[in-house]
Every structure is written in C-alpha cells, then in structure tokens.
C-alpha cells in the first residue's frame, strides 16, 4: 500500500453520532486520499449509511470534525456540501416520481445559471448543464430512455440514472451506498469497469458494499465498521487476513 497523502480529500476526525442514547458512530476517523477508491464494509447496522449521512450533512455529527478539500464542512447545510463536490447515491434508489431521465440529469446542477436566467428555458439558461446531461446520457447508455419517467424504468436502469444524476453535479468525491445490490455478476463487472474509468478521470470514490467479491476487487483500501466503531483499516489483503474482522464480520460469510 502506498503511503497516505498528507492532505486527504475527505478527513473525518473522531466523528461520533448519537441518536438519543444510542451511539451510531463512535469516534470514527477516516482519511480518503484523492483519486482512490475506498470501501466501507461492516454488518448491517454497523453505521455505514450513518457515516454517509454525516459526511453529506443529512445528519450533523454529535462530535468530531469533517473536512473536505481543506474546508471544515461539519456544520454546513447539505446543499452546500453537495455544491462543494460531494455527490451520493442511495441504498434504496431515490428518484423523483415526476421527472424524466433527462430531467434527473439536470436537477443536480441547480447552481448553474444564476438569477433571472434560471427562469429561461433550461437549455438556453444553462447550455453547459444541458451538454453535461447529454454527455451523462451517452456515458451511461441511457439515450433510449431520455424522456421516460425514470421511476417507471427497470431497476438496473434506475441505478444508472441515479449514478448519472450524482455525476452531473461534477463531484470530486462520489459516495456509493451498496451500488451492486440487486445486480447480477455481469452488471457488477460492468459497474466496476465504469468506476475505474471514473477514477482515471480523477474522481475519488467511497463505497459502502456488502458484496465482498466486488469490494475486494474494486477498492484499494477498506475501512471496517462494527456497531459504529472502526475495527480495522487497510488493503483488501490485510482486511481479509485480519482476525478481528474475520471474527466480527467475514467469518460468518467466508
């Protein structure tokens, strides 16, 4: 494993999140270097999605600090964090019932075209956003579904729409919440290739995943959560042979 860069893109320092008296995350410190694909694994209820919610500002950390690209984002509202360059997908697909596929590719670019221009027809108001949406449509092979209501499409297509939507925001960090859930082997392989392409373009990816085969082949670095506590971190090989991890998590499945 290469040495971690001194300034990671995303830095969680001693982050805790309490719900009432229950601790969903306890003193979690994570550093995501720019340009890497990093995985977060752990059993159900380990706090993985809570971690994403804290990073994206959907939840506020009870204590600790979140730093993204040298900015202290711990207390930023979620829309501001999104605009700063963190996009995410959801474990349960969250598309807008009233919107077509193409509209989904425009909706995550709301900050383009300020003021009165936002009242012009979308294409004229922000040709750049329109072009990026077309680009995403092509990149994900969604052109055939352009004007269909996204929520009416097959599950696999919806996943693509969600990821395309996240990418049209031009994030520096992409958070994926169980991206291969419900996918077959071929689809997962396709996604892996796609994520590598995105990495080559400079994107940093943090992925929650249950599919061990997928995680081990995709990620260069893993964090393991168990009951809100970080129990291990390291390369896939290190994680696979870590007795604590095997005991808490891998043992039951491997």
């Amino acid at each position, binding site marked *: 494993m290469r040495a971690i860069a001194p300034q990671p893109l995303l830095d969680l320092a001693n982050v805790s999140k309490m719900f009432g008296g229950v601790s969903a995350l306890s003193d979690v410190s994570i550093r995501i270097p720019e340009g890497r694909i990093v995985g977060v694994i752990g059993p159900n209820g380990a706090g993985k999605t809570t971690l994403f919610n804290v990073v994206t500002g959907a939840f506020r950390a009870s204590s600790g600090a979140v730093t993204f690209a040298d900015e202290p984002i711990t207390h930023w509202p979620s829309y501001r964090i999104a605009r700063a360059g963190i996009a995410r997908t959801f474990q349960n697909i969250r598309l807008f019932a*009233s919107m077509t596929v193409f509209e989904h590719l425009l909706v995550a670019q*709301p900050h383009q075209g300020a003021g009165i221009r936002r009242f012009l027809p979308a294409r004229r*108001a922000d040709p750049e956003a329109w072009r990026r949406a077309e680009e995403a449509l092509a990149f994900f092979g969604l052109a055939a579904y352009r004007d269909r209501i996204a929520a009416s499409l097959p599950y696999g297509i919806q996943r693509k729409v969600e990821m395309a939507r996240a990418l049209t925001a031009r994030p520096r960090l992409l958070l994926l919440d169980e991206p291969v859930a419900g996918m077959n082997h071929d689809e997962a392989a396709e996604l892996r290739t796609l994520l590598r392409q995105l990495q080559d373009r400079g994107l940093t990816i943090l992925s929650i995943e249950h599919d061990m085969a997928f995680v081990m082949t995709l990620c260069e670095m893993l964090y393991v959560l168990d009951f809100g506590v970080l129990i291990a971190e390291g390369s896939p090989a290190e994680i696979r042979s870590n007795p604590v991890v095997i005991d808490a998590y891998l043992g039951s499945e491997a």
Partner: protein
Amino acid sequence: MLLQQLVNGLTLGAVYTLIALSFSLVMGILGILNIAIAELFMIGGFLGFAAIAAGLPLPAAVAVGMAGAAAIAFLIEKIAYQPLRDAPLITPLLSTLGVSIILQNVATNVWGSDPLQLPAEWFDRRFQLGPVSIGAMQLVVIGVTVALVALLAYLVQRTSVGRALRAVAENRDIARLLGVSASRITLLAFMLSGALAGAAGVMISLHYAAITPYVGVETGLKAIAVMVVGGVTRIFGALIAGPLIGIVEVLTVAYGGSQVRDLVVYGLMILILLLRPQGILGGARTDLGQRV
C-alpha cells in the same frame, strides 16, 4: 340566460383558479396551508385598485398588485414561516392566520371598510355574442388568467427553477443532497404564490368593479375548496375545479338565491373530502403523499 351565467361563472372561476394555484404552490412545497394567501389576494386587489385610481394602465396595475403581494409573501415567509420551520404543521397555520387578521386590519385602516368602486367607464365596453354579453373586463380576467397559468406551467415544467421546485416538493432532503437550496426555493414558492394571489386580487376587483377588505374571506378562502376539489396533489387540478366551482356558484345564485351560495360551494368541498379525497382528477389523497 343560462349561457350568460356560464360566462359569468367562468370569469369568477378563473379568479378561483389563480388563488387555488397560489394555495397549491405553497401546499405542494411545504405541506402547509398559508391562510394569509386569502388576504394577499385582497391586498393585491387594493394595490391594483389604487394603481388604477392613480391613472396607471391596466397591465401596470396588475404588475403592482402582483409585486406588492409577492413582497408581503416574502415577509410572511421570513417572519411567520421560516422561524417555525421545525414546529408542528399547526404552528405555521396559526401564524399565517395571525398574519391574515393583521393584513385585514391594515387594509380596513388604510382603505376603510366600505367597498371602493372602480370607475364605471372601464366596465361600459361590452361585446354581444348572440344571446351572451361579455364585458371587456371579463375578457381581461379570463385572458390574464390563461396567460398566468401558462406562465406557471412553463416555469414549473421547463425551467431549472421549476425543476428545483418539483424536486423540493417531492423530497426536500434528497433535493438538498443534490445541491438544491431548499430554503431559497421555499422563499421563491412563497413569492410566486403571492404574485398569483395578487394578480387574482386585481382580477376580482375588475370582475366585481369593486373591492372591500373582506373579499379575502368571502372569495379567497373559497379557493381552498377549489384546491380540494381539484386535488391538492395535482396543482393543475385547479384548472378544472376553478371554473367548475365558479359556474356552480353563479348558477346557485341565479337559480337558488345568494343565501345558499356558500353552503353549496363548501358543501361540495366536504362532499369531495368524504367521497373522493384525492380530488376529481385523482392522484394521491389530499392529506397524504407527494405534491406538485
């Protein structure tokens, strides 16, 4: 006679449609009933009236009514809604009710409680189409309504602001995670809603050739019935429900007497709530689900 009543009902219905859209816009985004919209409608009417009395042309009067009501809507959001965002839904309902009473008091103090009449020469021009006589102002009311509804539909469906509105209406949290500033969109929804109510106010003063500080309670609140009948979850359900209620009301007055007018209109609303809570156009129930 019947045709004439239908035309009159259509004009009244056009005004109801505008106010109902105004209610729906805020209801759709926030799930709250901004009761003060009825009084924004009244204030818009007075401002338009004042503009006409000051000798401004009609389009300028409509613009004054819309801008004034939008400005007050802005203040309502900042003062009576925004600080109460995390309170139970009943709280902003009560605070906007408080604003309504204040607005009505202000109007009574500024303009008096007697009806103000618009200059008669505005209403002399009439067009005879067979048995039906259409006033020039009736045509203005219907024309302005059609134009504003088209503008709203364009805004909601075709612009980035409209897309952001729909995103926030459907799922505020997800919209924010995608970089949409839900608080700015909320403010915008209040102001658009206010502008629509203000335009409707100017239209009602043209329809009745008069305005009183009580027009909000008498006419504005009826738009809630229109919204319910059209289906709260389908903002454009008001396009059918508005003319329907307007015609029902005018026919009731013509053939049943004005004393049963409100009974029929609000009775229809209660009937719809009991029998078809999703509104005549269908969609989700009035009290549940996604909106806009």
